[in-house]
């Protein structure tokens, strides 16, 4: 343990904090998906990690498609046009996966009034199935004789290896906070995440669809009696969660640059942790929980060594829940006041 590594030098402290905020912003965006679905259905969509993972592949695929497989290192400015296309593609792919999950893994169970535990098992099953399907994408292509044509995308025989974006985005330092240089990539991640969270918060508070979501979260039967189409509301929450996960996937690929069929797992667990820490079902809680988790685990990594990062993250979760079982902001999506 080395407290000096974190607190001995203010510049180091800032740098660990900023690094944590960047990851925290990504956790927060993914956490939204967990929290929205929970708020409306009281169901943890454990397959949400795969919604994110498919988004990361969409980003890399767009770069392969528009740039090719040749390795390159670009500035953020140069990569921006393709990144924007990748953002749209990732949001669409993730949203599509989320909607498919809703349609095939949940709606039939909800219609039959199945216990929540059954839906949870269905979620875990869907999660494994999606993750493994991505790891076997070369076989699927092979069935159609397309593995040669699509080799750049499905990586025959290497589908389970790390899949990298051919274009590495080189961050440019913009300005310094204390001794920490803030890069354009960090800034884009934090600002993009905040803008999206605020937009979503406003949608839920101000629009008719948002009122439908809040009403359904507070009392599903009463909401139905008001004329809220509950199927549409549930679909809408999955859609929004998927869009946000796709955005998170793009930001993640900007920062990390590579993915794998199991890339969603630990991020999904962290994002779920963030959602629970902030108060599951609470949008602002997801933001707070995400940022807090990102910062705290980075501090923990500084003090105990980076191999302890995940231990710190989950011990933190346990401690917060022992003191505040309903999470930091406790109240649910439904009770969120306008």
């Amino acid at each position, binding site marked *: 343990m080395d407290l000096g590594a974190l607190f001995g030098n203010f510049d180091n402290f800032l740098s660990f904090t900023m690094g944590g905020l960047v990851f925290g912003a990504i956790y927060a965006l993914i956490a939204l998906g967990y929290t929205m679905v929970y708020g409306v259905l009281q169901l943890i969509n454990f397959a949400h990690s795969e919604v994110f993972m498919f988004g990361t592949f969409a980003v890399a695929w767009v770069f392969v498609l528009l740039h090719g497989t040749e390795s390159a290192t670009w500035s953020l400015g140069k990569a921006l046009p393709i990144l924007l296309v990748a953002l749209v593609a990732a949001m669409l792919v993730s949203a599509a996966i989320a909607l498919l999950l809703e349609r095939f893994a949940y709606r039939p169970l909800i219609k039959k009034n199945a216990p929540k535990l059954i839906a949870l098992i269905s979620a875990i099953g869907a999660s494994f199935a999606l993750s493994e399907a991505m790891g076997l994408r070369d076989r699927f292509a092979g069935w159609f004789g397309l593995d040669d044509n699509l080799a750049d995308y499905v990586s025959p025989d290497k589908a389970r290896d790390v899949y990298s974006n051919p274009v590495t985005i080189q961050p440019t330092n913009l300005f310094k906070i204390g001794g920490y240089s803030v890069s354009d990539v960090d800034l884009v991640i934090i600002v993009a995440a905040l803008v999206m969270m605020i937009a979503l918060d406003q949608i839920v508070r101000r629009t*008719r669809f948002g*009122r*439908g979501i*809040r*009403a359904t979260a*507070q*009392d599903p*039967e*009463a*909401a*139905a*009696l*008001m*004329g*809220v*189409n*509950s*199927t549409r509301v549930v679909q809408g929450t999955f859609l929004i969660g998927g869009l946000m996960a796709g955005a998170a996937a793009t930001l993640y690929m900007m920062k990390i640059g590579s993915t794998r069929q199991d890339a969603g797992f630990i991020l999904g667990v962290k994002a779920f942790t963030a959602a629970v820490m902030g108060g599951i079902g609470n949008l602002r809680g997801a933001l707070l929980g995400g940022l807090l988790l990102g910062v705290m685990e980075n501090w923990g990594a500084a003090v105990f060594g980076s191999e302890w990062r995940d231990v710190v993250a989950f011990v933190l979760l346990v401690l917060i829940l022992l003191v505040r079982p309903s999470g930091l902001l406790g*109240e649910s999506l*439904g*009770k*969120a*006041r*306008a």
Partner: protein
Amino acid sequence: MLLEVEGLCVNYGHIEAIRDISFGVEEGTVVTLIGANGAGKTTTLKTLSGLRKVRAGTVKFDGKDITHLPPFERVLMGISQSPEGRGCFPGMTVLENLDMGAYVRNDRKTAAYQADLDRVFDLFPRLKEREKQAAGSMSGGEQQMLAIGRALMAKPRLVLLDEPSMGLAPKLIQQIFSIITEINAQGTTVLLVEQNAAQALKRAHTAHVLETGEIVRSGTGAELAGDDSVKAAYLGGDV
């Protein structure tokens, strides 16, 4: 007939909650279903709103078969409900709750909407005073008013009221029933479910007695109020 219920059967798991009930609601009238706890009154209303699955029988509204329509489509057709236990959205203000009642309407910015809001505030001045207050922090009586007002904001042709007098002080009960009569006088058809049989029969054009999921007696409100067995079972001997 605005509403026609024909041979309706509804199950809760393997228990028959409603067995082969048939009745109609004439446009412009007040119809009441009275009966003891567990007789199937609430299940009937939930089924009419589409919250419970029908095992057998049909429900027709304005001549159209709505037996298997989802709840929101029934609201669009003009059936709204003030549910048992009020079902106010606790985290929303009075105004937001009333606004939820108008969820299916697309004239929220118009004078017609404002006029309907004013009408609800005329019926329940208390709600006007509390319009910015969270529904969850209001008394039971106030929440009951809110639930009824909210059901009216959908501009329904038929409003289903489930136990509007439940848990209210006697003075408030009188007031709620006068308002039901007034709502009806303003042109809305009312289907009222009540345990307070004396008041319900006094206000209703037509009444049905439900016992363990079946209609055992029907007539005008006055007829049933004068019926000896109804008196004995539901009116405590005398009205």
